[in-house]
């Protein structure tokens, strides 16, 4: 849920990175953090286990430029991808303005991708959102790996509604900002339509 502050002239929006365990959600945020200049970002918070698996969420506040005299701020969150953290995942989705689904391109993770996507839909529904109606993009991550599935197969399985989608390698950063820009753009367009 966006927060429009007429007093401080700011718009705040919440974007959530969703996807199966180890698909690279945290890596996306780390790359964005590392490549953003200091005045445009706040501290990145990672609530993680000792083995660096996300336990509750990662949080990265970004401040883009101004739009019609309002400073635009995006709060990026990741969810914990491991199946048994579902209760936490659900909590993070509360008040979301836009969703990035990060898929793991490796063939052996296809089932996990599908399961996570179904889980996303279910959890959104519980908050009263419809995945087909909110700003939403898909990222096929880990394209650099030799065991990654062909793109058209991924598209068919994970993006039947053909929302904007991107190939990525979050470690090298390829496709990371394209994904972010696309979802941010959809969120702002939604704001414009005043829904």
């Amino acid at each position, binding site marked *: 849920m*966006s927060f*429009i502050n007429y007093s401080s002239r700011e718009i705040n929006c919440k974007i959530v990175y969703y996807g199966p365990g180890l698909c690279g959600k945290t890596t996306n945020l780390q790359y964005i953090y590392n490549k953003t200049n200091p005045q445009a970002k*706040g*501290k990145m918070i990672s609530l993680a286990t000792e083995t660096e698996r996300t336990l*509750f969420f990662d949080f990265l506040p970004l401040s883009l430029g101004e739009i019609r005299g309002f400073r635009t701020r995006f*709060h990026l969150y990741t969810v914990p991808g491991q199946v048994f953290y579902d209760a936490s995942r659900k909590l993070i989705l509360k008040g979301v*303005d836009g969703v990035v689904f990060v898929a793991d391109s490796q063939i052996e993770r296809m089932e996990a991708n599908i399961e996570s996507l179904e889980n996303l839909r279910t959890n959104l529904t519980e908050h*009263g959102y419809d995945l087909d109606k909110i700003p939403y993009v898909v990222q096929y991550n880990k394209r650099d790996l030799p065991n990654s599935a062909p793109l058209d197969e991924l598209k068919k399985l994970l993006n039947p509604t053909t929302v904007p989608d991107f190939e990525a390698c979050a470690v090298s950063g390829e496709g990371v900002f394209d994904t972010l820009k696309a979802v941010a753009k959809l969120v702002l*367009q939604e704001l414009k339509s005043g829904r």
Partner: protein
Amino acid sequence: MAGPGMVMYEEEFHKISAVIDKLVKDANAKVVFLVDKNGQMIAACGEVENLDTTSLASLTAGNIAATGGLAKLLGEKEFSILFHEGERDNLHISLIGQRVILVVIFDDRSSLGLVRLRVKKCGEELAGIFDQLMKKAEAEAAGVGGVSPFAEITDEDIDNLFRE
């Protein structure tokens, strides 16, 4: 959709700031701030210069969300007050009208009893202001179009944001 987002206007912002400013003094607190349940900072007063208020807001909301989840599992509606005791600073967190989180940071210049007492009174006042704010936002949303400054956003405006 899950309803409109939160909106804050100048008038209500000043009222809210005045209330929490007073709470800082009345409760002998170091810092008082208000966060919406989604983790957006609404207002902060007191010794905030060296505080990372954005991080505080996000973690507070996460904390309330997790505690709310626990409450549900136990069949409670919500735990409306949380208290964290530190060696130097303490944290008193309370829910205002189901939507907003009020956080008071205090040290041994104050006490839990005093903070509780002052928060209770101030909470009612804040709930009133937020009710009024919600009504106003709903009325504006339902009213004549074109009031929103964002109705005029162009694709170019959006593209400009991402120009390095």
